């Protein structure tokens, strides 16, 4: 499963390297304490589960086709996460580092671009809003506290 409600086991993902792999590139997305100048206390990740699984599998196949020497392992969290928790982990292993970096970077870029996952940020005053990466700062729908 690519999507999990439990903490991501980064060590398990890293252990996917094969004996012929000399390079391992890991990317972790971590919940930050602020976004566009506003303090964040936690984030709720909502996932369209079956489609997210299919889309992440498609991305993995696509990347292993484009970088045939690379192998990917990745997971995305769902549910409520506190600051400092890992929201997404991508590991790309390859014989050499150039492919490992390129495959890892492409994977996280494509995850953010197309996997149906949404996040609602919660602030210290109890207010929250859905994050819309396609809009500029200050243009987001602010929802009332307690939503």
């Amino acid at each position, binding site marked *: 499963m690519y999507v999990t409600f439990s903490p991501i086991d980064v060590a398990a993902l890293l252990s996917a390297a094969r004996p012929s792999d000399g390079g391992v590139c890991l990317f972790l*997305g971590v919940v930050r304490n602020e976004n566009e100048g506003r303090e964040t206390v936690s984030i709720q*990740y*909502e996932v*369209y589960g*079956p*489609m*997210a699984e*299919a*889309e992440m599998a498609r991305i993995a196949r696509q990347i292993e086709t484009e970088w045939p020497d690379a192998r990917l392992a990745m997971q*995305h969290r769902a549910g409520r996460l506190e600051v400092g928790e890992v*929201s*997404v982990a991508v590991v790309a292993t390859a014989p050499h580092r150039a492919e490992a970096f390129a495959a890892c970077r492409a994977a*996280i870029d494509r*995850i*953010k*671009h*197309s*996997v*149906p*996952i*949404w*996040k*609602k940020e919660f602030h210290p005053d109890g207010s929250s809003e*859905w*994050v*819309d*990466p*396609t*809009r500029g700062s200050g243009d987001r*729908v602010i*929802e009332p506290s307690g*939503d």
Partner: protein
Amino acid sequence: MRVNLLYFASFRDAAGKAEESRELPDGTRVGQLWHSVSREIPRLAAFQTMPPAAVNQKYVDGETVLRDGDEVAFLPPVAGG
């Protein structure tokens, strides 16, 4: 024919529900369904163009013809990572 329509995140808030079943004329296209939905839900009418749409968990374009039993979702801007 009937399709099952799913709402996520801000669209779920706008629709006030997570899913609904809709009876549609045979041959209805995804873009036509969006046209109906966005007229009914004022906060979705603000979208100038159809947002990304999925049928049976795959991205499709507005020309896609719906079939009985399809699972359809219009997706707010994704924000994974």
